């Protein structure tokens, strides 16, 4: 199989002075203000929470292997799926790409020495940890059973579990997300190197910029909503309590005003990764660069006006349903723009199939299915049948796991040589990508079918006739688990034994590939002056031809 890989060879060395070796000792990491080190801290902590969330998912699938509620009691099951959702959404998906890859790459990609507010960046990691620790504490001391949506009046009146601790944990973790977003927006506006105009920014930066808008504008609304839930539970104010004249639907409006844009917080940075990977591994400029850049912003803007599609069966007015249904269809347009432009980027490109590209292909297929089934749910007629069934579970797992997680793994593999200075082992990681893809489809495709047949979500037991599809799903989850464990093992292995990567193993454009791997603490020894257009692979090819004629 052809490859674009270009390594320094056996006598290559990882540079002695870099951001990892610059200082030693635990404290130098815990008190660092270097965006690259904070990215690594985030990477370790979100991986930890990913495996906790994954273990909980394993328990859910194990319970659903049989129709009876036999592995655990029904209320334990409620707590397990709640914690799975809370951990995966707030502690893994929301910070996944922005806080790790974004933190590491955005300053380098725009030619800056650090994010605008390095200490706030560190603070955001500590807030994340505090939120994570509180969530774990709530989980160990009895859990919470409201579902990750904290639906009132269940959460305010009827649940006797740790709603307050979990709510405050998310409140705190939310501030970590606000600070990350704020830092990114300010950095991208004010810290670009000379010559780095908006339309020379890599699409990864555009995507993170759009996601940051959502973080900054959406998360505070979730924060105040959770505060009100906590106040209602503790001192008994009546904003959401129907007995006192409050309205639980208002809670839904406020909650989804954040939580719908939150899915774009999760997916947009992933789309940014895919743009970089597809361009690099087809050796072409991203087709319709401007359209892809603006489609990110369009998703962020439209994303704020579709929240009520989560509430079609909750008693919102029919006219509201019509409007929100239309707006939901509209948000599919910029997403489709991206998919089509990636497809056209591939067209007549010199495609190679390294691991990041395999994950990117996985993303494109699965995200398309996930996105199109979203249209089913956005149409009010089919939504009434499909909502609250496994169809919805399958839909958002296609987008979040099939889309976002594939993009995350794609990005981690793509920039692994930059972050660590060493290559991951190619063959086994290609295998892991394929295993993940197969396992994923086995797990979640049957859930579309079983949801179509009417199996409701969030129950520990189900009628006998759904068992076959559930067994498929559980078996697939086992394969998927293997697909996630493999990278964990070989990536750690590669830290010591991987081949030395050199500065630009993928022969990619982009400022991050023009500096040593791993980078220096100060990123650039001299402030770069950007004259090159973004993704200019044609230019790169011509340079190489030029070199050959000289040497020959």
């Amino acid at each position: 199989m052809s490859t674009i890989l270009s390594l320094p060879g056996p006598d290559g060395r990882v540079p002695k002075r870099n951001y990892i070796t610059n200082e030693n000792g635990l404290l130098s990491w815990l008190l660092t203000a270097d965006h690259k080190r904070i990215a690594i801290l985030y990477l370790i902590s979100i991986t930890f929470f990913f495996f906790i969330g994954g273990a909980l998912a394993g328990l859910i699938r194990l319970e659903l292997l049989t129709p009876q509620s036999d592995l655990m009691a029904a209320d334990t099951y409620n707590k397990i799926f709640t914690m799975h959702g809370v951990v995966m959404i707030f502690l893994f998906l929301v910070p996944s790409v922005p806080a790790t890859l974004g933190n590491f790459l955005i300053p380098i990609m725009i030619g800056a020495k650090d994010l605008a507010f390095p200490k706030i960046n560190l603070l955001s990691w500590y807030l994340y940890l505090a939120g994570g620790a509180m969530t774990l504490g709530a989980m160990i001391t009895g859990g919470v059973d409201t579902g990750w949506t904290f639906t009132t009046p269940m959460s305010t009146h009827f649940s006797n579990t740790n709603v307050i601790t979990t709510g405050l944990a998310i409140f705190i973790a939310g501030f970590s997300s606000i600070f990350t977003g704020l830092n990114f927006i300010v950095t991208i506006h004010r810290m670009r190197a000379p010559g780095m105009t908006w339309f020379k920014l890599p699409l990864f930066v555009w995507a993170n910029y759009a996601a940051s808008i959502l973080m900054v504008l959406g998360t505070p609304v979730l924060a105040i909503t959770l505060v009100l839930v906590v106040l209602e539970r503790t001192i008994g104010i009546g904003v959401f309590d129907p007995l006192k004249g409050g309205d639980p639907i208002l809670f839904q409006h406020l909650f989804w005003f954040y939580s719908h844009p939150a899915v774009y917080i999760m997916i947009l940075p992933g789309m940014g990764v895919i743009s970089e990977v597809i361009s690099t591994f087809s050796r072409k400029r991203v087709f319709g660069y401007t359209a892809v850049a603006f489609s990110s912003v369009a998703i962020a803007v439209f994303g704020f006006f579709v929240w009520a599609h989560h509430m079609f069966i909750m008693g919102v007015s029919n006219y509201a349903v019509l409007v929100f249904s239309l707006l939901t269809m509209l948000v599919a347009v910029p997403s489709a723009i991206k998919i089509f432009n990636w497809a056209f980027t591939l067209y007549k490109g010199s495609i190679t199939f390294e691991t990041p590209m395999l994950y990117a292909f996985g993303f494109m297929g699965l995200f398309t299915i996930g996105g199109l089934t979203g249209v089913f749910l956005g149409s009010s007629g089919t939504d009434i049948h499909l909502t609250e069934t496994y169809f919805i579970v399958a839909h958002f797992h296609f987008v979040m796991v099939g889309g976002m997680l594939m993009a995350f793994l794609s990005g981690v593999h793509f920039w692994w040589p930059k972050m660590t200075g060493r290559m991951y082992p190619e063959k086994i990681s290609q295998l892991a990508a394929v295993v993940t893809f197969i396992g994923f489809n086995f797990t979640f495709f049957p859930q579309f079918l079983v949801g179509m047949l009417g199996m409701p979500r969030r129950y520990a037991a189900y009628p006998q006739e759904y068992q076959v599809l559930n067994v498929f799903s559980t078996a697939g989850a086992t394969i998927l688990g293997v697909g996630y464990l493999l990278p964990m093992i070989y990536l750690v292995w590669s830290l010591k034994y991987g081949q030395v990567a050199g500065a630009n193993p993928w022969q990619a454009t982009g400022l991050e590939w023009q500096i040593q791997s791993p980078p220096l603490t100060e990123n650039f020894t001299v402030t770069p002056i950007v004259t090159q257009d973004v993704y200019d692979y044609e230019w790169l090819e011509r340079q190489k031809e030029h070199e050959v004629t000289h040497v020959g």
Partner: protein
Amino acid sequence: MSDSHAVAEAGHAEHHGPEYLRHHFVSMDQQTETVSFGMWLFLLTEIMFFGGLFTAYLIYRNWYYPAFVAASHTLDIKLGAFNTLLLITSSFTMAMGVWCSETKKKTGLILSLVATLILGLGFLGIKTIEYSEKFEKHHVPGTTFDIKGFVHPSAEALAGGEKALAPDMAAKTEVYFSLYFAMTGMHAVHMIIGIALLCGMLWKATRGGYMNGHIAFVENFGLYWHFVDIVWIFLFPLLYLISRH
């Protein structure tokens, strides 16, 4: 910044900025603009934070108009107006503080900050009096909430033009007071955070801080303080003033 940036700073000898120019900025201009942009963005998140409460208020005010009117009449408009005056004055003294730090007047800065501190504390003190009155009248949402005063207003209130509410509408005054406490409470939390920051700033100012031209903290704190003031400028008419006879 600690020694983790020793290397970065060594490679940075070409920048001849003042010592408070952080290593990752090219110039003082860039640093100042970046920091104030960050602050404005933070205030935007604060607007969204209070926005949720204002939305709830507008919706319920529309639904339960008579209850909201009756409940707002129980607030003491004089205390509210006095508090508004205190806050606006404190915004002025804060603006004076920023000006004094710009023109490097140490005594002026300290006096302005002390005045701001006193006015802020005064606001919280009066808020406490108002809150305790709510406790006495059983207007605090929760188990002790009592609607008697709205169903059977006192003779004095009736003479003042107050109308008795039907019990089901009177019950909705609890929503009003829920929002009253949530909104003014969140505002008070912001005041308390502001006062804590103010104390830190004052401590530094008495030791000669902010006299070398590096006044980003004073300026941005000023923005925060004005923002908290502006929130109150919206809260005061919404909660106290509108629909008064």
